[in-house]
């Protein structure tokens, strides 16, 4: 019996991964939001409001104080990612592998683009952003494995979206949200409670920040550069100073 246990412990030690520097950051403010199970957040292009989606398939517009100013009448299957790009709101529906393109002024879906992916129901696309450095939309699957999709033609009506690059990302755990800010990608992990800063061309992690937030599901930056993290389970927004190394 002792020999068995010793062998196990020895094998486990050899399988350890190398640790890297991690910076811990704490929120300076928390705000409850009237959005059930918020799953992602983005800043509007005019920087005057936020868009938030929920697990229940709902889309909300919030003011800069995180008060709901508009609730879309649209009902999505489920909604896990959101961005505002060229006056349209892009909503990622994880289970059906679809991106819905919404005109918020008319409150209607103007196009739906399917991006096939076979993995688990709850392990599909969790996040979306526009990678300005490579002039492509990018989507990440949640886990098992974390896969990056670079996509074009997502905004052209009547034309199928085209996946131009697909690669597995070398990260343990999961990815729950992504945003592009000042030339860098900022990626959120729910399971690891981390924010990663990624090189937008190589998709390599440059810096890691540890955050004490339960079930973090959405990430964006405020107009003043504060880091905004949405907690799904707590239904609240956590506001951090811009993270530094």
């Amino acid at each position, binding site marked *: 019996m002792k020999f*068995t246990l010793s062998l196990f412990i020895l094998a486990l030690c050899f399988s350890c991964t190398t640790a890297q520097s991690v910076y811990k950051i704490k929120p300076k403010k928390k705000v409850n939001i009237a959005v059930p199970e918020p799953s992602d957040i983005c800043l509007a292009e005019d920087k005057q409001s936020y868009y938030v989606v929920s697990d229940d398939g709902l889309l909300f517009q919030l003011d800069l104080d995180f008060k709901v100013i508009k609730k879309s009448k649209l009902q999505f299957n489920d909604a896990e990612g959101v961005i505002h790009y060229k006056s349209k709101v892009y909503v990622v529906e994880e289970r059906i592998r679809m991106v819905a393109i919404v005109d918020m002024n008319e409150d209607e879906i103007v196009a*739906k683009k399917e991006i096939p992916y076979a993995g688990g129901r709850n392990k599909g696309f969790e996040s979306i952003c526009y990678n300005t450095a490579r002039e492509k939309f990018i989507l990440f699957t949640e886990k*098992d494995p974390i896969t990056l999709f670079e996509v074009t033609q997502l905004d052209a009506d009547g034309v199928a979206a085209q996946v131009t690059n697909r690669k597995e990302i070398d990260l343990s755990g999961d990815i729950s949200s992504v945003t592009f800010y000042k030339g860098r990608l900022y990626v959120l992990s729910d399971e690891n409670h981390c924010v990663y800063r990624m090189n937008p061309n190589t998709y390599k992690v440059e810096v890691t920040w540890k955050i004490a937030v339960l079930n973090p599901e959405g990430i964006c930056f405020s107009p003043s550069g504060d880091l905004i993290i949405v907690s799904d389970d707590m239904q609240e927004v956590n506001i951090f100073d811009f993270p530094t190394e």
Partner: protein
Amino acid sequence: MKKSTYLATTLFVVFTSTAFGQYTISDGKHVLEISGSFSSFLNLRNMKPNELDKNNDRFSLRDAQIQFEGRVGTRVEYDFQVDIADLISGGADPENPGLMDAWMKYKIPHWFDIQAGYGKVNYSRSSLVPFNYTAFWQRTEITRGNFFSRRDVGITLMKDFWKKKINAQFGVYNGLGETTLRTTNDASGKFEYVGRIEFCYPSPFRHRDIDDKHVPIPMFALGLNGRYANKVLPLGEFFPSGSAGDFGFKVFSGEKTTYGLDFAAQWMGFSAQFEIHQIKGTPSDTSSFLLRDLNQTQTKGYFLAGGYYGQLNYHSKKLHTIVSIRFDENNLSDLIPGFNQRFSGALAYQLDGFNSMIKMQFTHILKEESISEARWTDQVRIGWQYAF
């Protein structure tokens, strides 16, 4: 122990590939996910010195499951899950039955969810934790389906409050547990009523034993459970074979009231569970064996049974390892002196999270009640579980 050493090293060296998870098919409205799992272990036992039956070691295929989970739009969900290994064996092991789920659910927005069909009964947090999310190969005696059923056919109403921090379920079932599919209902014609309410703080708490996310803020969940059946069989009628469970009081002719409390906590990879249950049984037949041939003055017409367990776990992300220890005690009847006590430990190495784990469980019997003596004193189970 040489066999376990050999198996442990072989499994570790050979099976290092990653799992790619489930498969999902969608037509834009209907989403179907197909998944499954296998698990197999080697069971080794130290037998009691005077035990003549030396059938102590065996290999076992515990699971060969396939699951179809679906969702149609935002209102309808369904789940169909079978374990082929248990279907072939033909038994109705309440911990590991052949048919595991066959239900459909309708969500009425802003009101409640309603579920119909065969599936887990919402009673006991431990029973609701999926097997492959623990380091153990076996649940505690009190929660593995011999004191109360874990599955049944019926209808369940579900409602959550306060940002899902309070979850309540109430259901009406045939009351025959896992054997209910063998018959229409028993001759008493009565149902079983089951309710559960759970309070979680500071956020909703999933039915998991292990804190693999290492939550940065301590989380708690407190559950209250209750169930009631009053099944009085007419003379000459019987319940289906196996429905009474290993100890004879899971289903019996008479009134059965069961209530329990469960508590769970987790923080930074540490997690703990505690659960306690009590049964009050009043057999309709005063000469029932459950009253142990005692007179009415001694029994007052009823018996009590129940037990509790406590479990501590630690998950190491760095070592991909789970360590768990557990102590459980149960009393099969207050009319018989004595009680049962067991201590168990478990070690699991995650090759690919919970999708692929090598698990080892050790159980030692500390005390035994005269009416439930096992043939062994110690048991080790070591094997591999793999989900696809």
